[in-house]
């Protein structure tokens, strides 16, 4: 939790600097590629970094989407998604990074209408075998929304 934009940005940059190969951002500033379907956005990471064959990577992406009960958005594109679906798409894409250290930057900026962090923690639990660690960055004044977390 940070009390200023400067402190948050500084910390984000430090994290990116410390783990350049593992950091997997989930942020409004790191959007989904809009001219690709969601499953392609997710598969892209495996296809590029591990040279995984297209079909295998895309099958994996659809499988993971089904795991978070979002199989129906696989063939949709970013503008057609609601904030929750967009968040899960971004989260799964981040989880595709090898030994991913997921960095969620202000989750309530991605899903503004959320009352608490439960949706995010539930989604994270469903895919907890896909990442190494998860770090949530937010402002001090959002602390209330995080409850006991």
């Amino acid at each position, binding site marked *: 939790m940070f009390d200023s934009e400067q402190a948050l940005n500084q910390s984000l940059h430090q994290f990116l600097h410390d783990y350049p190969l593992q950091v997997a951002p989930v942020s409004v500033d*790191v959007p989904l590629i809009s001219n690709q379907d969601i499953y392609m956005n997710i598969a892209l990471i495996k296809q590029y*970094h591990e040279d995984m064959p297209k079909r295998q990577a895309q099958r994996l992406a659809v499988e993971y989407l089904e795991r978070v009960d979002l199989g129906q958005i696989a063939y949709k594109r970013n503008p057609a998604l609601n904030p929750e679906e967009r968040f899960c798409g971004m989260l799964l894409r981040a989880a595709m990074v090898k030994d991913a250290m997921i960095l969620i930057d202000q989750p309530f900026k991605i899903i503004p209408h959320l009352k608490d962090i439960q949706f995010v923690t539930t989604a994270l639990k469903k895919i907890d075998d896909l990442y190494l660690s998860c770090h949530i960055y937010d402002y001090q004044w959002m602390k209330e929304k995080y409850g006991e977390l």
Partner: protein
Amino acid sequence: MMSFGENLGRRVIQMLTAFADTIVFAGKVFIRIFRRKTYSSAMREVLLNQIYFTSVQILPVFLMVSIIFGSLLIGIVFQLLKEFGLTGFFGHVLMGLIVTELSPLLTVLLITLRSAAAINTEMAVMKVNREIKTLEMFRIDVINYLLVPRVINGIISIVLLSSLCSIVLLVSGTLFSWLIFGMSIDVYKNILLNATNFSDILIALFKCAIYGFFITLIPIRFGLRASHEFTSIPIVVSQGMVNVFAAILIIEVLSLLTKLL
């Protein structure tokens, strides 16, 4: 007077710097084409999609334009040859002018209007939407993933479509040579074979490859110059397209000079 000179000098320096930057950038992309590491599964998928969008989707329109425009052109040229008593140059005009000069030019103009403009806009929109930053954040090399497949696609598409255009023109030639000169297919074929200069065809194919390289590289380069404001999109697209047409002219002039020398 002094300020005019200064302004002119500044403009010339800016132009030369931009030209040098483009050449350096082209060199960087060119080197990546030959690196094995560039060809990841993701890149190959983009390449296949690009070839489909540029070469396959355009086929009906391209064939129609080639047939209509090519047939008219061939008809007019043959008629003029007959009127001016230049029937002896028939084969050289057909191969040297129409096949090796006009069909690459017609192809590159069509592809520039359709695909180069689309690539320019796509890159600018990706930049404005911070999607380029997204790729960088996930350590996806923008040159390998976005640029190289489009450039390779440009080269392949222009070479293949230009060859197709040449075939359409030669087939039209068969019809018009029979209509205007009363020439049989065998005679037409012999004249063409005698007039065919292998080096001209090689130069034409090489020129197509150069066209393909630059009409995709320049729009990408200008598209990536967009700022993070939507208003920058039309600016970079128009700048990119003007520069593409300038590049087409330069390549055409250089190829003509190569032929003269």
